[in-house]
């Protein structure tokens, strides 16, 4: 137990110290974690083991990548994935083949041997999903053309791992080393099956995940939601991710790919934002842990023994991959700045590289002596990636960003493909849903949050996009896109919650325009005093409408009745804001309130009692004295 606590303490302390430091220097969180890993790793402080030694930690850390892909899946509508198909297959496939070929050719040229060279090519063609996506997300580049292409290639690599694992044993030159199976995928996976059976298994698993997401998960989440136990929902979300990952591992597929798929299936679900909010902190921590283990895993002994070899390998790897990627980017008509980002982003080796290298060794494709420098090269290339991003931002983008597509989100900031909307509505009962329908009728989609799972289900069946969740959770607000929305509509009937939400929004999203429903006058005072400019007393409009009709029934001309109600409303809204200031002081409040009521009476009576046009209406010449008539 204390051992666990000590380990946790070391990792957490390293992260808490290093990451803010790196952020302050503008280097991004990924580099911060990597540096933390190097510092606490076996070669500096020696507080934790290197790569592969603390395997428990390593497994947990790699789960961060799995969670990240689940979250990315949640943000990807299936339609967007379909639009990415050219990038995915074309760009991804060509990148893998060309990079592997180029690396293999280099390997053969320096006498590494044909088969190990080809294996090294396939291994090094992989890029680091974790580092690249985390960095792109942090810099808000994921939705740019370069970001989308990068993502497509990474996704393709994830899929490509499966055939590569099947292919690598064919390159064996030495007998299988039975002791060296650590880190290699379990051998009971589908790689033992014949090709057609593998295809069947893959399709069956994918189908199972889609069916699970479509038909099973929504009712399950609904039942869990009705318990109103937040931690139970979190547990269910984690269970889902862990379960899918486990299923994928059992059949020998990539867990990251499986959870990604589960995420995509759930992208249209009402529980999407709540799931995001639940998984996000776990993903962040585990991914940080993953980066720390990469940092700790850099073999400084090898680096010290052969600095020139490792350095040239790293440079060669980055250069070859960058050239291939940049060439492809241009062939696929990306702008220069986008192509540069795309090339630099994917130039490093990836975490799959470690797995494949372990597998290659255990199957006699490479000797440990051949593999060790490659492991160091991949780790170092991953470590310099955040620096390449900094280099791109500071040096390349200013020069090439004439095509400004890279830095800015897509110019058409209408409904974003990820489903982020300019309006968020919290509470979708009888008040909120009219607001939502009104906006929708005007082609404005709103992100709707409601905490009543039955209500959410009913509205979903009516075809309205409503998300389940407690709007008072900051993570949920982030997931719903509060940082980028323009307008936030609060229609919660619970006044305490409504006021708490106002406070939360004003603290974290001061730019949002808040429009709030007030359940009664006191609530309206409280909202005004909390700084809400747009306050709507829920019964005011209907009461005035009824008053208008009552006047009409009593013989008032319709337009006159209407004007009276408008005059009443304008005065009462002003009085409301005045009374909000003195609401606490009861005696002043009642004096002032009585004064307002009598003022209003006078104003309205004045409008009614105004005499018909006077004799000298001004349309005639001024009277000359004796022409007055009765």
């Amino acid at each position, binding site marked *: 137990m204390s051992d666990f606590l000590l380990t946790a303490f070391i990792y957490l302390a390293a992260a808490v110290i290093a990451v803010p430091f790196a952020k302050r220097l503008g280097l991004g969180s990924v580099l911060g974690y990597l540096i933390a890993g190097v510092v606490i790793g076996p070669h500096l402080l020696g507080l934790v083991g290197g790569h592969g030694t603390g395997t428990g930690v390593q497994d947990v850390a790699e789960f961060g990548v799995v969670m990240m892909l689940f979250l990315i899946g949640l943000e990807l509508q299936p339609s967007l994935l379909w639009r990415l198909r050219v990038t995915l297959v074309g760009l991804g496939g060509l990148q893998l083949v060309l990079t592997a070929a180029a690396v293999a050719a280099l390997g053969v040229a320096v006498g590494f041997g044909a088969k190990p060279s080809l294996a090294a090519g396939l291994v090094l063609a992989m890029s680091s999903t974790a580092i690249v996506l985390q960095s792109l997300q942090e810099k808000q580049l994921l939705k740019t053309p370069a970001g989308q292409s990068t993502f497509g290639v990474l996704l393709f690599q994830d899929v490509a791992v499966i055939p590569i694992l099947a292919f690598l044993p064919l390159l064996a030159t030495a007998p299988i080393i039975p002791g060296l199976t650590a880190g290699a995928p379990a051998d009971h996976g589908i790689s033992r099956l014949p090709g057609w059976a593998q295809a069947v298994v893959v399709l069956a698993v994918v189908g199972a995940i889609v069916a699970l997401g479509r038909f099973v998960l929504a009712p399950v989440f609904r039942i869990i939601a009705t318990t109103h136990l937040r931690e139970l929902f979190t547990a269910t979300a984690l269970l889902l991710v862990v379960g899918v990952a486990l299923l994928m591992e059992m059949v020998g597929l990539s867990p990251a790919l499986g959870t990604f798929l589960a995420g995509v299936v759930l992208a249209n679900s009402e529980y999407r934002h709540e799931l995001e909010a639940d998984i996000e902190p776990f993903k962040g921590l585990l991914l940080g842990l993953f980066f720390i283990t990469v940092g700790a895993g850099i073999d400084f002994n090898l680096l010290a023994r052969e600095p020139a070899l490792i350095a040239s390998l790293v440079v060669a790897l980055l250069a070859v991959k960058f050239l291939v990627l940049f060439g492809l980017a241009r062939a696929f008509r990306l702008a220069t700045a986008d192509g540069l980002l795309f090339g630099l982003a994917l130039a490093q080796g990836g975490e799959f590289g470690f797995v494949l290298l372990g597998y290659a060794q255990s199957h006699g494709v490479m000797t440990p002596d051949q593999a060790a420098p490659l492991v160091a090269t991949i780790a170092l290339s991953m470590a310099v990636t955040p620096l390449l991003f900094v280099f791109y931002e500071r040096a390349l983008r200013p020069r090439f960003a004439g095509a400004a597509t890279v830095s800015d989100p897509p110019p058409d900031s209408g409904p974003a493909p990820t489903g982020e909307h300019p309006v968020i509505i919290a509470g979708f009962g009888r008040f909120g849903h009219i607001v939502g329908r009104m906006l929708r009728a005007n082609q404005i989609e709103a992100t709707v949050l409601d905490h009543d799972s039955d209500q959410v289900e009913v509205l979903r069946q009516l075809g309205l996009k409503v998300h389940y969740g407690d709007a008072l959770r900051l993570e949920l607000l982030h997931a719903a896109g509060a940082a980028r929305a323009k307008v936030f509509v609060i229609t919660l009937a619970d006044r305490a919650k409504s006021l708490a939400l106002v406070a939360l929004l004003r603290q974290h999203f001061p730019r949002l325009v808040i429009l709030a429903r007030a359940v009664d006058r006191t609530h309206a005072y409280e909202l005004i005093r909390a700084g809400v400019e747009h306050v709507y007393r829920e019964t005011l409009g209907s009461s005035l409408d009824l008053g208008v009709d009552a006047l009409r029934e009593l013989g008032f001309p319709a337009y006159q009745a209407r004007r009276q109600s408008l005059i009443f409303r304008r005065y009462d809204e002003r009085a409301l804001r005045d009374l909000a200031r003195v609401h606490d002081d009861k005696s002043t409040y009642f004096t002032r309130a009585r004064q307002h009521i009598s003022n209003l009476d006078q104003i309205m009576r004045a409008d009614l009692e105004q005499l018909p046009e006077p004799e000298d209406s001004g*349309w005639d010449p001024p009277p000359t004295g004796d022409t007055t008539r009765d």
Partner: protein
Amino acid sequence: MTAPHRVLVLFAHPAVQKSRLNVRLAAAACGAPGVTFHDLYETYPDFNIDVPAEQARLEAHEVIVLQHPFLWYSGPALLKEWLDLVLERGWAYGPGGDRLRGKLLLSAITTGGAESAYARDGHNRFTMRELLAPFDQTAHLCGMTYLPPFVVHGSTHLRDAAAIDAAAGDYRRVLLALADRRIVPGRVQGWPRLNADLDALDLAP
């Protein structure tokens, strides 16, 4: 004899509770046989005009009367909104816009000033016909015949119940005559106002 004309009175008064004269004209129009009386401010107090319903109503009548007080040398705001929305291009004017063609348009107006004030050398510098040019041209563009206006001048001076009764009676006579097609546009075309000399029109009461 051909079928009688159907007459539509579009009444626009933003403050009927303050009107002495125009409401009396409205009352006179209200019960007249063959006359449809339509109160715009009563129907659309929030200015939310139902365009298809208004157009259908126009199509069902041959004579359109715009009855309103003369406010700032024009009609009340809702009447302008009505013109803006209802007389659509392609319906009332422009390509294919022939649905009002051949109808008669009459302005029935009460003014604050005396008739003498609406003259070149008067207080208001223009004649009523000149000031009503926008309505005249609106009718022309829609292929309608614009009749000389029915004007009751000096409403602010008209405190005498008998004079008001007379004006209301005249108005009713004109509306009935329009329904019976006893007013021939060609014969009155140059008149300053339709009610200048009702006897000359030879209208049976």
